[in-house]
Each structure stands twice: as C-alpha cells, then as structure tokens.
C-alpha cells in the first residue's frame, strides 16, 4: 500500500475500522507523517464528542473491582513509549510522543486507596429533587427505567459540559460550590456540596448576566443534604457574570432576591 492510500485511512483508523495488518501498517506510518498524526488527533476529538452521547453510570461494584485491581497492577514505564511496546495503547496518541521522564521515586510512590465515592451519588441524589424544569441528574439511576431517562439525559449533558475542551471551573462562594462554564457548549453548570439552605427565599436561582446588565433566568435549585447541581443553558459570549439569587418557590423571570454568589465570566 502506498503512502497516498495510507493517508486515506485516518478516518477508518480513528473508528478502529482497520483490520489487524492494516492497523499495524498505518501505525508504522504515523511517526513519520505529521499530517496523518494531526488529522488522527483532531478526528479523535470529534469522535469523543460522539462517544459522550452515551454516558451511562456503571454498577457501583465496578468501582470497588477496579480499585482493588489497580493496587496490584504495575504501571508501564514512561521511557519506552512506542506503539509496539504495548498493543493496547492507541498509537495515534502515543507513538512518536515526547515523554517527560519521571523520577523513579515518583513512579513507585503509592498513596493509600481511600474510598471517596460518596461525592458523585450525592450530586445525583440532589439533582433528583431540584425544582427547575431543565435541572435533573443521573449517576445512580439506571437506563431503562422511565423516570431515569430524562435524568440520564441531563447527566449526559452535564458530563459533556464539564468535559468540553474549553470548560473552565470557578469557585462559587456558596458552600463548597463551583461553576463550570463552556462557551462551546453554551452552558454553565453550578455544582457543589455543603451549600446552606436559602435564608431569604424558597429556592436559589441561577442567572446569566449580560454585558448590558440584563439577566437571563436560569434554573432554580435547592440543596439536598448540602449538595446541588444545576445547568443554565445559553450563549455565554455576551455573559459578564453568573449570579445566584434567592427567589420565591418556582423562581422568577428577573432577579428579585439578594445575590448570594457571583462569578465573573
């Protein structure tokens, strides 16, 4: 197969649609071809966006099984980064890569495994009781149950926002909360723990405040055992800041209560 044909295989390679010998030949070609490497890595980002449409929470037992296994699984060394060294490693990313040497002491350092899974289910549980129409969550719910379908869609959406290439996280002075904003996803996610109950209103509400001072109404939310999660949808390009106010039950069309937290775009 000549080089021109190999160039045409980037798409099939990215989708793992090459058979064994073609894959090997293409991976052997990659280190020598900047063009193919660049195309492979940019197409992979598009494929990642496809894959993130299918986020599904696995059974909780998987966490325990994986943690137990990594404790007894040695890591590969960073100094032998070739595709041939490990057939499982995706070569488009790894082959020909420059690898920063890591001191041996750092490689063998092992921190103790501490169970810390409560964080994730906490958000899902909180999301399930949220008031706002567009706000709900997944994570501990399972596919196939009618009630969980919308929750799952929102969970997926949240995952896509927080994993968007341009996602930025800012601390929000409301308990231990954060706002994750993604211009590409046109959305901001408020999430956190230890959030106190509203003092002056029934619910919190998220607002996208634009440069001209107008505020677009976002979802309302209430802490559940301190945990919150809410997704505000909208074009962020003209947004100056994200604010959270306290509002009466059901929320408001424009802010009426005190601003309890704000984050500049």
């Amino acid at each position, binding site marked *: 197969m000549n080089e021109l044909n190999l160039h045409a*295989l980037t*798409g*099939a390679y990215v*989708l*793992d*649609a090459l058979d064994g010998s073609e894959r090997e030949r293409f991976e052997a070609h990659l280190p020598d071809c900047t063009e193919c490497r660049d195309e492979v890595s940019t197409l*992979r*980002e*598009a*494929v*990642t*966006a*496809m894959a*993130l*449409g*299918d*986020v599904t929470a*696995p059974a909780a037992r*998987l*966490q325990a099984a*994986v*943690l137990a296994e*990594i404790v007894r*699984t040695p*890591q*590969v*060394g960073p100094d032998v980064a070739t595709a041939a060294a*490990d057939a*499982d*490693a*995706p070569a488009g*990313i*790894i082959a020909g*890569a*420059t690898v920063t040497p*890591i001191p041996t002491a750092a490689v063998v*350092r*092992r*921190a103790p*495994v501490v169970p*810390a*899974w409560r*964080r*994730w289910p*906490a958000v899902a549980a909180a999301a399930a009781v949220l008031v706002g129409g567009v706000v709900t969550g997944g994570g501990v719910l399972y596919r196939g149950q009618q009630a969980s379908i919308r929750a799952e*869609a929102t969970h997926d959406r949240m*995952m896509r926002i*927080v994993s*968007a*290439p*341009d996602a*930025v*996280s800012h*601390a929000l002075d409301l308990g*231990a909360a*954060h706002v*994750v904003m993604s211009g590409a*996803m046109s959305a901001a996610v408020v*999430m956190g*723990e230890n959030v106190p109950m509203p003092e002056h209103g029934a619910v919190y509400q998220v607002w996208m405040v634009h440069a001209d001072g107008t505020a677009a109404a976002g979802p309302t939310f209430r802490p559940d055992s301190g945990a919150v999660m809410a997704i505000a949808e909208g074009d962020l390009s003209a947004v100056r800041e994200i604010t959270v106010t306290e509002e009466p039950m059901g929320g408001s069309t424009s802010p009426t209560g005190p601003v309890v937290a704000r984050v500049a775009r």
Partner: protein
Amino acid sequence: MPEEPLLRVVRGHGTADGPAHGDAAAAPRASATATAAALLAEVARGSSVAFEELYPLIAGPIYGLALRVLRNPGLAEDVSQDVLVDVWRLAPRFDRSRGSAMTWILTIAHRRSVDRVRREQSQVDRTARVAAEREQDHDVVVGELERTWDTAVVRRALTTLTGLQREAIELAFYQGYTHDQVSAVLDVPLGTAKTRIRDGLIRLRDAMGVGT
C-alpha cells in the same frame, strides 16, 4: 466535613479553583485547578488518590461507550474494568500534546470494545443481522446518532453529513465494523467506504469546531 469540591476537575485553562476545606491532606490539590489531564499526570506518577478522583469523570463515558458497542451490560462492565485498569496502567504514556485526556481514555475504551465485539460474535452473523435490520427499517441505523446526540452543536454538525457518510461512521463506530464490512453492508466499493468515513469525520470535526 466534605473532603474536596465535588467536581472541580475540568479540562481547560488554569484558573483559580475551589477553596480549601481545612482538610490538610486535600488542601494542596484543592487550591489549584485540576484538569483531567493533570489528574492523569498524577496517576502517571502512581497516585491512586488521583485515580479515585478521575474515576467518576470517566467511568460513565467508558461504560456508556462499551455498552453501546457490545449491547450487553455484563460484557460492557467486563470491558470497562479492563479499560479503567488500562488507564491506570498506561497513564505514564499519556501525552497531552496529542489530545485531551478524555479522548485518550475513550480511544482505549473503543478499541477494547471493538476487539471484544469482534471476538464475541461471528462476523458473518453480525453482517447478516445488521443487513437484515437495515432491510427492515432503514431508519434504525440512520437514526442512532440523532437519538443520542442532543446538543444543538452536534445536530447542526450532523446535518452537514450525507446519508452514506453517516451510515458508514455509525456502522464502524457503533457496530465495530471494519471498513471492509462497512463496504459490504452498504454495498459500495471499499475505496468509497474509506472515503465516506474519513470525509464524514472531517465534516463533523469542522462543523463541531473541535480539535482545531
């Protein structure tokens, strides 16, 4: 007392992140933005604590993709476990200059899922089954992407694809087909299948504005 902010782990720019919570052990990490790539870098240095923080970010995408390709929760869980352990094992080889952490991880997940689905099922059977499904209801396969991609960005990107491009991508990505099988099922020459897959992905990439 919560240990650390819930999900302060995002890819992107190095902005200030959450407050420390008085937990001495958690404070150093809580004071700086930890990106998924940064977490993976810590995992590469042997930190199982960093791996625990990474897990909730990646387990859903990995399992979801495996389930989509394998269509069997047991097999998908099995493959997901292998992938997650691979993330740990191969983390020292991750190079962020080559792409995002999520992409590296999902590349491993897709590769393993496809390898598994090809082992589990006779390729002849699978080809026959999908050809039959296609015969019955042409929209079954074509509609897959619309059902799962719900953002405006992706919807817009999809409209730029031809029917053949979409089918070729879906067959390869979700069915684990080789391009030979794609060409057989779609009844187009192999060269056409290759071209449609590549052109389609390039259009998606450009329409979504990713990776550029």
